[in-house]
């Protein structure tokens, strides 16, 4: 099967430290006429309007430079976005980003649902009916949130399966696996607590069954289910408690842990798939295209991971 070559990245997109150095004798800029003598033929004077136009064109760059000088963000972003990935990286590696995207969809639709939802036992069902039947696009947003939760659970499981079958949980990425497992548990918590919120027959009985499954654990079980219900029976406090867990407690923890998860991904790099054989490093063969020295800090382990296989 002929391999399709990836299109070459245009030079102006690549930040200067990563740009391929020009070969000797070949200058980066196209050859033009020799610079004219400024004394005999000075460049035409710019009008005030032209000067203003030039300044306006520079303004976005100036703003970015102003921010960059105070944050040092460009170095971080360059290391993160232009980091090296091992040979054989394929579509399975997008499952984590897909899960992240599903989470963002849940967060955004959830915020808008919260504008119409009432976490009260007597009004919850009516407010969901209101969202579905009266609010413009309400059924669509509610549907995105409802089905999106299943999508997120499916994607996070596929992501975990990819990590497991590719052996990507091994040294030095064990901690990232642990964080991922906690994120999985938190995602299940979100799905469980969100299920009660419409407060219809299905969610009512499903939550009773779910809480009672918690209660079957010896010794702590009865107290755990009592904590979830906030009392002996499922009631008003249960609903507001689930609402608070669903809206405030778990999302914050998920966002924080996603940050830690992604930091470790960038820090440690990704693994090559198990079917990619390790290749022997060929002495001083230059790293193709990229100047390894400046990007080495962020991408070093990624390159190692690639050659280790």
């Amino acid at each position, binding site marked *: 099967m002929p391999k399709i070559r990836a299109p070459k990245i245009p030079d102006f997109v690549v930040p200067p430290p990563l740009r391929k150095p020009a070969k000797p004798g070949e200058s980066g800029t196209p050859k033009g006429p020799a610079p004219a003598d400024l004394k005999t033929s000075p460049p035409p004077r710019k009008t005030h309007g032209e000067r203003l136009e030039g300044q306006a064109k520079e303004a976005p760059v100036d703003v970015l430079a102003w921010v960059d000088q105070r944050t040092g963000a460009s170095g971080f972003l360059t290391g993160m976005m232009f980091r090296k990935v091992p040979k054989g990286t394929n579509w399975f590696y997008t499952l984590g980003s897909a899960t992240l995207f599903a989470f963002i969809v849940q967060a955004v639709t959830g915020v808008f649902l919260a504008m119409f939802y009432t976490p009260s*036992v007597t009004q919850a069902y009516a407010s969901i009916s209101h969202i579905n039947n009266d609010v413009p696009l309400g059924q669509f947003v509610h549907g995105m949130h409802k089905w999106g939760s299943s999508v997120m659970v499916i994607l996070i499981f596929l992501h975990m399966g990819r990590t497991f079958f590719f052996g990507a949980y091994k040294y030095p990425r064990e901690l990232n696996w642990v964080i991922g497992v906690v994120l999985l548990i938190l995602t299940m918590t979100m799905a469980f607590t969100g299920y009660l919120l419409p407060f219809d027959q299905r969610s009512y*009985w499903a939550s*009773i*069954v779910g809480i009672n*499954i918690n209660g079957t654990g010896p*010794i702590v*079980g*009865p107290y755990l289910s*009592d904590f979830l219900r906030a009392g002996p*029976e499922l009631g008003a406090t249960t609903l507001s408690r689930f609402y608070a867990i669903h809206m405030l407690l778990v999302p914050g923890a998920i966002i924080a842990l996603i940050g830690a998860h992604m930091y470790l991904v960038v820090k440690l790099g990704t693994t090559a798939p198990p079917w990619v054989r390790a290749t022997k490093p060929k002495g001083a063969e230059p790293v193709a295209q990229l100047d390894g020295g400046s990007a080495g800090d962020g991408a070093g382990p990624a390159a190692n991971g690639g050659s280790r296989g």
Partner: protein
Amino acid sequence: MAADNADKLNGAEEAPQERVQPDPPGYFEGESMTRRRAFTIAAQGLGGIAGAAIVLPAIGFAVAPIFHRGRERWEAVGPESDFVEDTYRQVVFTETEGIGDAGKTVAYVRRSSADLEEEPGKFVAVSNRCAHLGCPVRFVEAAGNFICPCHGGVYDFQGKRIGGPPVRPLDQFQTRTRNGQVEVGPRFSVTNQMEPVRARDPGEFTGGIWEYLYPPRPDTFPPP
């Protein structure tokens, strides 16, 4: 003068054996800890107290309902003449107040039966909450059994488990008679020998060592 000496001694053989540390600020003879260490301990202690003052009430607020036992609640469900020995009558009453229909529950009530060796003149109120995971069971007149729609739990006429996943008989409610009306009260669970024990959640075993592995919650009422 001191600087001069230091310069002269730099790298020379007659350098002093040990450098004399200057006394830290606030030093006095016989102090037991440095000023810096005292301040560190004090600052961390104050921080800990401030943190505890915020966190402990919050945790207590979330956990306190476990230990809160509500008022004992009795509700009349019909005159004595409504109930017979050989079949159940379904009654609906409020178990949790203030949350509308969600707080209601169903009991199946009959007179106690001499055939089943029960105390005469009493009433039996069987909860419809399945002892497996809490789904609502239904009394099927033709079979004389309680049947759960969720996972196929089956109970006999008395509420003893005869099939499916439930771990104990159906719960019951305390009953009493006031002014010719039958009243149902707090819930209690029973062991496989039909001995009353304090109410347990569904899915929890009763009797024997299970009484310790599934301790009764503090908010449940003592059995009759």
